[in-house]
């Protein structure tokens, strides 16, 4: 057997921290990065007698996620207690929805080699986050309870994913949903999007599932792909040698790119789930669901189709523009200021999109200025080299592209008289290229044009330059 004979069967459990102002069951703030234990109260510290009071906005956010992921919204769902001891969990139970989640069924379509693949969603439920431990080594550990009780939704997929790439594509789609609906920042590095991977192997063509391993502690998209690949290889090697896979939880170590065993199934906790009667079941009417549905802004797929139709973009271009809500919003603001959407999209995809990492939440440059720049480019007022230079300047500070070009004398030289000197120099100092060209070597023209560009600081209109060179050589 070789590694090619196996396939991974992968399901993801994704936790999305919701961006509500207040916590799930108390009025503490949820802002990220506050000094330790400054966003706490008797309720989230689990002091005796305190009671949870449901923040209804969380229900609304969970329903938004459910609708965006094509789930059924359950008119009746319930909170349960998941009992376990850990210092970051003051109540010693997490309030979650084990038996009756708020959203069931659903799917997300992700781009794949064959165009598109459907990943089914099993459920989405609401639960509260735990705090954070800060380990001081020999001095012990400290507990920061700021995050205790921050609302989360957990999105559980069916085991429909086969590769790390699909897993990442699925995660990107979830993040896009989180951002488009405004329910979360979806930042893996800050922990507002977290992902556990359930992975098993089987021989291609088989239907039965292998022994499942859970991977934890993965905190970037690229690590998700790496962890899956590394675990796939590990399991394939074991199976190849006739070994068996142990059902266990493994931790991904970013520094080595390997997974390491955390605990085996036999050590797995019994969480003793049962209903939390401090809360009443969550009931949602169809009218409320309809109201929430109406409040959801246009999502990625809808925008993508619109861009393709309205601006004549390719599937690839539209997909890239809509993969990130902030980028898509930026494009929409810029395109409103431009009459050259194609040029604008080229500019954005080449030089702006790569800057949109997951931390960007504001425009990186003034969209209006970029729109104007696209128009200048398309009209031939500047060439693409200059375009990049101006864009760089726009990223530094907000300025008027036309004025900047004027001030720095960056406009394209379209006047033959102004190019004459440069053409003469190019011909005089490139005798060999001239000989080659005259000898029938058409490619020599490129180096001659290049020389004209160099002489003009990249401002020469290359078409005009070529024209003038040809004419000059014809006369020789």
């Amino acid at each position: 057997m070789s590694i090619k004979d196996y396939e991974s069967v992968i399901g993801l459990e994704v936790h999305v921290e919701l961006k509500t102002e207040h916590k799930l069951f108390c009025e503490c703030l949820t802002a990220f990065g506050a000094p330790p234990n400054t966003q706490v109260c008797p309720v989230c510290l689990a002091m005796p007698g305190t009671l949870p009071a449901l923040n209804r906005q969380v229900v609304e956010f969970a329903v938004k996620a459910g609708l965006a992921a094509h789930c059924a919204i359950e008119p009746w769902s319930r909170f349960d207690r998941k009992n376990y001891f850990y210092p970051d969990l003051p109540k010693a139970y997490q309030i979650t929805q084990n038996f009756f989640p708020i959203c069931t069924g659903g799917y997300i379509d992700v781009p794949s080699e064959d165009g598109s693949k459907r990943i089914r969603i099993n459920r989405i439920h609401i639960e509260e986050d735990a705090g954070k431990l800060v380990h001081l080594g020999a001095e012990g550990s400290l507990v920061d309870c700021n995050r205790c009780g921050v609302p989360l939704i957990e999105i559980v997929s069916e085991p429909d994913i086969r590769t790390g790439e699909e897993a990442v594509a699925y995660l990107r789609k979830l993040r896009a949903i989180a951002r488009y609906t405004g329910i979360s920042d979806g930042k893996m590095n800050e922990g507002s999007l977290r992902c556990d991977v359930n992975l098993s192997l089987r021989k291609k063509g088989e239907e039965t599932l292998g022994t499942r391993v859970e991977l934890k502690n993965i905190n970037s998209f690229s690590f998700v792909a790496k962890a899956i690949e590394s675990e796939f290889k590990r399991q394939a090697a074991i199976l190849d040698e006739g070994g068996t896979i142990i059902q266990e939880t493994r931790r991904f170590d970013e520094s080595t790119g390997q997974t390491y065993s955390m605990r085996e199934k036999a050590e797995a906790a019994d969480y003793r789930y049962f209903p939390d009667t401090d809360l009443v079941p969550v009931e949602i009417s169809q009218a409320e669901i309809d109201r929430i549905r109406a409040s959801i802004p246009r999502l990625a797929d809808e925008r993508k189709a619109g861009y393709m139709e309205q601006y004549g973009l390719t599937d690839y271009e539209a997909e890239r523009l809509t993969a990130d809500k902030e980028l898509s919003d930026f494009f929409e603001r810029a395109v409103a200021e431009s009459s050259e959407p194609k040029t604008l999209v080229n500019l954005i995809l080449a030089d702006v999109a790569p800057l949109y990492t997951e931390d960007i939440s504001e425009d990186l440059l003034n969209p209006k200025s970029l729109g104007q720049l696209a128009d200048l480019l398309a009209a031939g007022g500047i060439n693409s080299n200059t375009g990049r230079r101006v864009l760089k300047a726009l990223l530094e500070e907000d300025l008027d592209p036309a004025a900047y070009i004027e001030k720095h004398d960056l406009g394209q030289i379209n006047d033959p008289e102004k190019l004459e000197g440069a053409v003469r120099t190019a011909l005089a100092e490139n005798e060999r290229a001239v000989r080659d060209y005259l000898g029938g070597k058409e490619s020599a023209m490129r180096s001659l044009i290049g020389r004209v560009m160099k002489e003009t600081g990249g401002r020469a209109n290359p078409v005009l330059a070529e024209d003038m060179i040809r004419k000059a050589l014809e006369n020789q």
Partner: protein
Amino acid sequence: MDYQKMQLTEIADGLKRKEFSSRELTQAVLSKIRDKEPQVGAYVTLTEELALEQADRVDGLFSEGRTLPPLAGIPGALKDNIATRGIRTTNASRMMENFVPPYDAFVWRLLRQQEMVLMGKLNMDEFAMGHSTETSAFHLTRNPYDLTRVPGGSSGGSAAAVAAGEALFTLGTDTGGSIRQPASLCGVVGMRPTYGLVSRRGVTSFSSSLDQVGPLTRSVRDNALVLDAISVRDRKDVHSVGGQESYLAAAGQDFGRPVIGWPESYFQSGDLNPQVREYLEKALHFYESIGARIVPVDLKTLDASLSVYYIISSAEGFSAMNRYDGVHYGYRDPEAENLEEVYTGSRSKGLGREVKQRILLGSFALSEEHYRDYYLKAARVRTLIIEEYKEVFGTIDALLTPVTATPAWPLGTLPQEAGGGKYSNDRFTLPPSLTGLPALALPLGLSSDGLPVGMQLSGDRFSEGLLYRLAAAYEDAHGLLPAPQEVNA
């Protein structure tokens, strides 16, 4: 001033008319406490200084001619599982011996708004788990009518304090009978209101679906007056609905022609102490004589209540107790050297035997292996019990039963040793708990040994007014129970 013979409304009038001051009243109660407390042991914490300050404040307000709420200036006390900001709230547990909450329970906030005088915090079974207040980590509480006997529990301090005159009213909590049973054993009136009538916020959870707060008082009208003060809707307790009427007014309404049911077959069983049976039968005759219709009822789920109660309350209690782990607050084993030892050491040393037993029982009932056969089954049977009582209260207005099968039993013994069946002391208090329905314990008289005997009146959801009306009719005809010192003298 013999405040033990007075109704709270009379005391409120006296204060208003300045016949006596709140300071005089408070000092009278303090001197009673000094006299009785060494034997009775009702309190965990006394707040004498605060009490006198508050009494002076109220006297000041009265002398400014202010109109104050009915409980203003009246000395009362709270069970020590009700959070009082700045005053330690121990739950009678080593685990919480030094815990001073930074917040007030909603009911305490309401009583502060009433300008009551807080005398202190009352002894109880540890974390309200027990029947006799003997599981308190601190000390015993003794029955004021017989110091060799239990006061009942878990609100034993709340009942004993009222009976001994160490407070004019108290609050207790009731999960499976923890207000009604000690009230009955100590000869005071105790009300477990409909689930949700009184906010649970700030009251230590034992079993969230069963816990209720309620008043313990000398008289029925006192009880209604206190319930009026604490039955206010709390928006942060999702179950809270607030009071449905003025209970003091309801207690004074015409008796009318209510239908009162009684569990005939149980009355004839050998489980019931003969003196208790005699009082209950007299009560039935009394009600019949003043216009009630008395009908026997058959309670099919009665015997199921006990196991259902223990499974559900222990399961919820297990989960509620796990937060006492030595990490965030409360007792931490000073010898612990790692996390595991913080947990095991703090819990082993900080919690008592009864609490540990319930944790183990709940842990078992909720385990993956046993969930279906225990917790889930109990939850389903609970639904059947709820349905049965819905049906029962479709045909009768109130149910008259014993509270306990026997009067108070000697300290250090089990109730069954006093003659009742093994579980019969719990049998009748559990159904109202499991169904969330209101039930009131009313003293009927004294046994030949001078021990209080009581009965339970229970009814449908929000029937507190009716229960007070029935109880007041009995009390008006028979008078208050004599205070312990009058019996023992």
